[in-house]
């Protein structure tokens, strides 16, 4: 197992290096025929290829194929994005045989954009017209904060809220915290009872980024010419100091997320709450089955009393790859997949996809009570949270490397040999270096 891992890493590194050199060479040639793709129907039957790793997405695609004999879609699959499919996309772009459409998470989109791997969907009227159907901030994710560019159709989102053990909070007379100050007070009381209020996972940098997002911070900004790296912005440091304090005072556990011990900590009632995204509902019900009926969901604690900000953790888009011959048809399919009620219902049922459209949040399945959460209609809470996500948060083009560097620092902080603030400072510097190394303009 270990050997495989090492081999994979080595091979990924080699292929990444090759891809980089390849892309550098490729962009020279593609600069020549810069004729912007026009969004016109092909006027003949076409077959599109579409890569996604979401189990059950075939069902939705089958519906489309039945209704659209002239635009057939073939589903291709593989591991989740960061586990290999993104690297495959880059390899395929390099070899000139990328699929027409692909699943790309929001935080990976800027990377594909910078490598010139995506078609600008702003050329397609239908796509531009659909903007109002989507939550503002999800549109911000695919337009990368610009006005006249659209690099994908938002599919799903991960607004964050607070999952908590309502039974334990109630039995011990602890009020459900509505601010982060109250959250810390509750943490102290829970520690006295022998539990932990939550687990701070050193591997889930995305969760931390969600906290920063909620606090009004951004990690990246792009003014159209150069990138600003702001991992050490005030909001980001404030969040780091808050969690550093909880870690230092042993008020939170620090198990690596998604491991057996982590599941067990929740299943045994050692850990009482989790600030997570909407899809976390499944993680709890499958990882901590003994606690069925004892959980509830509330809006996330706020930095200021009476505030109404939410963070986001995850979510993805359907993008069209550079070099497709069928931009119009691809855009049409992507829109249908992410806006039509039949597709959204199918995706929600087979894969618990939480839609990115306003109308999608009203799906019948998303307004019912959920048995595991004591019958609470928990998706109402997430719909509220989704409306409170800051629309301006932008991801950078080197997120894989940023995550890795910050995660290293977080691991050190969890074991007591460093702080979260150190980790962010190191991540700031190495991210700037990585951008420069790829000749991406960066402000300092």
């Amino acid at each position, binding site marked *: 197992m270990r050997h495989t891992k090492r081999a*994979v890493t080595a091979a990924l590194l080699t292929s990444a290096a090759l891809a980089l050199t390849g892309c550098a060479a490729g962009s020279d040639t593609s600069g020549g025929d810069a004729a912007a793709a026009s969004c016109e129907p092909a006027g003949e039957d076409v077959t599109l290829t579409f890569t996604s*790793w979401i*189990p059950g997405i075939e069902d939705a695609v089958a519906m489309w194929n039945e209704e659209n004999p002239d635009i057939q879609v073939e589903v*291709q699959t*593989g*591991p989740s994005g960061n*586990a290999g499919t993104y690297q495959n996309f880059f*390899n395929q772009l390099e070899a000139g045989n990328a699929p027409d459409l692909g699943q790309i998470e929001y935080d990976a989109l800027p990377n594909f954009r910078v490598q010139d791997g995506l078609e600008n969907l702003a050329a397609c009227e239908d796509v531009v017209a659909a903007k109002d159907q989507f939550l503002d901030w999800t549109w911000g994710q695919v337009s990368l904060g610009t006005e006249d560019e659209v690099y994908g159709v938002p599919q799903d989102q991960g607004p964050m809220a607070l999952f908590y053990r309502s039974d334990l909070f109630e039995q011990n007379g602890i009020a459900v915290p509505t601010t982060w100050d109250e959250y810390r007070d509750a943490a102290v009381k829970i520690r006295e009872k022998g539990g932990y209020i939550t687990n701070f996972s050193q591997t889930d940098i995305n969760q931390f980024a969600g906290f920063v997002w909620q606090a009004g911070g951004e990690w990246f900004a792009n003014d159209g010419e150069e990138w600003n790296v702001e991992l050490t912005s005030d909001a980001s440091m404030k969040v780091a100091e808050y969690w550093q304090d909880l870690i230092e005072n042993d008020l939170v556990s620090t198990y690596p997320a*998604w491991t057996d011990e982590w599941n067990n900590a929740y299943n045994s009632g050692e850990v009482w709450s989790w600030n997570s995204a909407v899809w976390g509902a499944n993680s709890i019900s499958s990882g901590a089955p003994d606690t069925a009926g004892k959980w509830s969901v509330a809006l996330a604690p706020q930095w200021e009393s009476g505030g109404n900000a939410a963070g986001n953790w995850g979510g993805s888009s359907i993008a069209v790859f550079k070099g497709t011959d069928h931009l119009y048809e691809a855009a049409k399919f992507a829109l249908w997949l992410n806006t039509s009620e039949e597709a959204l219902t199918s995706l929600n049922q087979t894969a*618990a996809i939480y839609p990115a459209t306003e109308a999608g949040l009203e799906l019948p399945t998303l307004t019912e009570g959920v048995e595991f959460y004591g019958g609470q209609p928990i998706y109402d809470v997430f719909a509220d949270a989704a409306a409170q996500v800051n629309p301006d948060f932008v991801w950078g083009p080197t997120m894989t490397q940023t995550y890795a560097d910050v995660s290293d620092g977080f691991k050190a902080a969890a074991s007591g040999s460093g702080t979260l603030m150190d980790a962010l400072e190191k991540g700031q510097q190495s991210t700037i270096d990585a951008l420069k190394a790829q000749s991406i303009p960066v402000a300092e």
Partner: protein
Amino acid sequence: MSTAIGSDATSASPAVNPKGEARSGGAPASGRGPRESLLSRGGAMLVMAIFTLYFLVPIWWLLVASSKDRGQLFSTNPLWFADFKLFENIANLFAYRDGVYLKWLLNSLLYAGLGAVVATLLASMCGYALAKYRFPGRETIFNVVLGGVLVPATALALPLFLLFSRVQLTDTFWAVFLPSVVSPFGVYLSRVFAEASVPDELLEASRLDGAGELRTFFTVSIRLMFPALVTVFLFQFVTIWNNFFLPLIMLRSEELFPVTYGLYAWNSTINQFPELRTFVLVGSLLSIIPLIITFLLLQRYWRTGLGSGSLK
């Protein structure tokens, strides 16, 4: 000089004596030999037992974990059974998404089985030719093949992908099958073994009897090389079965996946789709069974082949 030696001897002798006394005092001289060997044998057994345990515990854990449903996975003792639901889990796995797992298992058998047969045939012919025929460039070819042993398959995967893209063979059966039928190590082993086990006199006799080269190879030589061929087959079977990076880069269509890659793809989405966890566990357990069967069936030949191959 002599005094010096003498004094050495005298100073040494008392040192010897207490040792000897201590030994003989501890046990009768006759019991000394067996007792020492018992001790060292015991030590060796202990080390082996620890390693056996080290290798077997994960498999035991896999078996136990596969027999539980999702809830019990985290709430019960990881090394002992709860409700035994293995067969239910297997049935669910086979039913999931129209039995795609079964398809993967068959794919793996096809890639590894057929691939290893062809690889063995090619390697044995190549090794045999290098051993038994004299032609210009023979050593050069052999050295290049030897160099091939040193190049890890993962390093070749991406160049292969770019090549296969040119001829539009990516995401086909051939994309995984063709690279698998090449086995530099098999060529090496075959050459060494052919040199040692196929006597030139026999080939001469066969030629005198009027048999062509091909016929000689297939009726005479290949039988003499059989243990080596089994070894090459087994090595290649295991290599292809475990090869993961090539399918990862080449394949997009689920119905072409080998079982390793399919399980990896599932495992990578466990965070989002936790219900896949049981399938990954049960799938992993089932996926090692063909390997174990192949090993047990061919072990006898394999050992002789490896032994003579490496010694001669």
